[in-house]
C-alpha cells in the first residue's frame, strides 16, 4: 500500500504510545497520532485534553481542543484549573505530545514569535499548555514536519523547554521528568543522544536519505551509530488512519481538516 510522508509520520508517532500510557494531547498532528494509537495497537491508551476531558474516546478527530465529541465520549470532564493542577502538575500524565513552529537540536520549541518578541515578523499562537506540559509529563513526544525553517540552529523564542539551550537545563532546574525522548518528522525519527541530549537521527523513513535529512535541518544534524529504517505503515494502520480522517472530514464539513 502506498502512503504519504504525512501518513508515515502519524503512524510512526502513534506506535510510540503504549497501552498503559496516559497521554496529554495537543491538537492537530498529536491528536491524530494519539487517536490512531487508541484505534489500533493501544486501545487502553487514556487520552486527556487540556479542555478538561478525561479518558475521551472520540470517533472523529476534534478540530479544536474542546469539540463536543471530546466531552460526549469522556469518562468525565473537569474544569481547566483542575486539569492543569491535579492532572498535569499533579504528575498523573505519562506522555505529553507536542508540536511547534520551530525546534532546536535540544528539542526546545518555539510557538511564540518569528522575529523579535516586541516587533514580530510572524506572531504565533503562544504557549497554550505547552510550557507546563513539557515540564510535568513523564516524557514528551514531538511531532513536526521537517524543514530548515522549522528545525533551526537557534530559536527566535524559547516557549517550551526541551533539554534547554545547553542540553543540560532540566537537571539544573530540578525538573525530574524526562523531557523530549522522541521527535517524529515526515523524514525520520530522532532521539536524544545519551549524555548530550542532542536530538540525533534514530531511524529514516523508507526511501528517505541521510542527505535529505541534512538538507532539511538547520543545524549540522548527527546520526545515531546505528540508524534503522522506520518500518513502513502496515495496511491496518493506514486503513485505520484513513478511515479516521475520512470520518473527520465528513464531520467537520470540509475535506481540509487534518
Amino acid at each position: 500500500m502506498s502512503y504519504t510522508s504525512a501518513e508515515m509520520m502519524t503512524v510512526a508517532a502513534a506506535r510510540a504510545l503504549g497501552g498503559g500510557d496516559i497521554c496529554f494531547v495537543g491538537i492537530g498532528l498529536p491528536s491524530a497520532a494519539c487517536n490512531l494509537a487508541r484505534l489500533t495497537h493501544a486501545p487502553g491508551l487514556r487520552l486527556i485534553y487540556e479542555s478538561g476531558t478525561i479518558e475521551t474516546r472520540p470517533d472523529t478527530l476534534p478540530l479544536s481542543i474542546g469539540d463536543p465529541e471530546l466531552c460526549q465520549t469522556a469518562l468525565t470532564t473537569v474544569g481547566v484549573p483542575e486539569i492543569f493542577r491535579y492532572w498535569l502538575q499533579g504528575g498523573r500524565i505519562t506522555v505529553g505530545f507536542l508540536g511547534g513552529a520551530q525546534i532546536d537540536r535540544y528539542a526546545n520549541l518555539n510557538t511564540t514569535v518569528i522575529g523579535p518578541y516586541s516587533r514580530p515578523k510572524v506572531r504565533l499562537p503562544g504557549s497554550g499548555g505547552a510550557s507546563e506540559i513539557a515540564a510535568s509529563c513523564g516524557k514528551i513526544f514531538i511531532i513536526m514536519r521537517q524543514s530548515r525553517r522549522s528545525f533551526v540552529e537557534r530559536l527566535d523564542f524559547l516557549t517550551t523547554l526541551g533539554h534547554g539551550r545547553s542540553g543540560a537545563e532540566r537537571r539544573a532546574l530540578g525538573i525530574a521528568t524526562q523531557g523530549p525522548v522522541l521527535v517524529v518528522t515526515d523524514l525520520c525519527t530522532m532521539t536524544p543522544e545519551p549524555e548530550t541530549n542532542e536530538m540525533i537521527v534514530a531511524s529514516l523513513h523508507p526511501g528517505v536519505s541521510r542527505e535529505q535529512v541534512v538538507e532539511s535541518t538547520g543545524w549540522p544534524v548527527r546520526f545515531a551509530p546505528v540508524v534503522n529504517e522506520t518500518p513502513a505503515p502496515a495496511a491496518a494502520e493506514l486503513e485505520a488512519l484513513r478511515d479516521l480522517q475520512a470520518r473527520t472530514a465528513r464531520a467537520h464539513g470540509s475535506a481540509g481538516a487534518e
Partner: protein
Amino acid sequence: MEFLSLGEAVERFVADGDQVAMEGFTHLIPFAAGHEIIRRGRRELTLIRMTPDLLYDQMIGMGTARRLVFSWGGNPGVGSLHRFRDAVENGWPAPIEIVEHSHAAMANAYEAGAAGMPCAVFRGYRGTDLPEVNPGIRFLRCPFTGEELACVASLRPDVAIVHAQKADREGNVMVEGILGVQKEAVLAARRAIVTVEEVVDELGPRSPNAVILPGWTLSAVCLAPGGARPSYAHGYYGRDNAFYLAWDAISRERESFLEWMRRNVLEAPPGEAR
C-alpha cells in the same frame, strides 16, 4: 442579579477602558455578547481570555481593544488569527499591547481571583523565555522545600461575560460539559454577565454536584438563544466547525473581514449571534 436584555446589560456593565474577561474554552463562547460590545462601540478594553479565538479576533479587528491578556491565540485546528496578527504585527486597526502567559498561569490566576487571593503560586515557566518579556511573572521559594515556584498576580476583571445553558427564575445559572474557566472568571470579577440558552422555571433533576452559579454572584442574566454560535452549547447545538474553517478566508484580508462584520454583526439585530 437582574434579568436584562443583552443590550442593556452591556450598556450598564461594560464601560470603555474596562478589563473584560469573556471566557468559554472552545465550548460556550459568548459570541452574542461580544458582538453587542462591538455594536455599542466600546473602546480601549483590556480583553482577557486564555484562548482568544474568533470572537477576540473580531473584537480586535473592530478596534475595541487596547490590550490583550492571553495564553494561546489561534484559530483552533485551523491556523492563525489574522486580525490578531495584523494588530500585533502591523498595528491595524490600532496597536495592541499584549500580556502573555501560559495556560497553566492563566488558569491558576483565575482560580486565585475566584479565591480572593492576590496571587497564584504554581510550578511553571521553568526554563522558558516568557518571564523575560512579561514582568508580571515572578518566582518565590517554597518555605518548606526551597523549591522555586512561579507566581503571577490573580486575575480580577472588572467584568466577566460567559454563556451557559440555562438559568432559573432566580437567576441561578447551570453549566454543563466543558467547563473551562468560566466559573472562576465569574467569581473573580467585580461584575458578571451571563447569557443563557433558556430561562426555566426550575433547574430540575440534576446531579447534587451540578455546576451552578447562584444568582447572587451575577450582575445580569440575559436570554440569548444561540448566543454561543459558531461555538456550541452542550445539549443544545453543535460546534460550527465549517465556519471556523471558513473564518480563515474571511478574516485574512481587512476588506473581507470588515464587510463580513458589517453584514453579520453591525447590521444584525442585537442579541443574535451568527
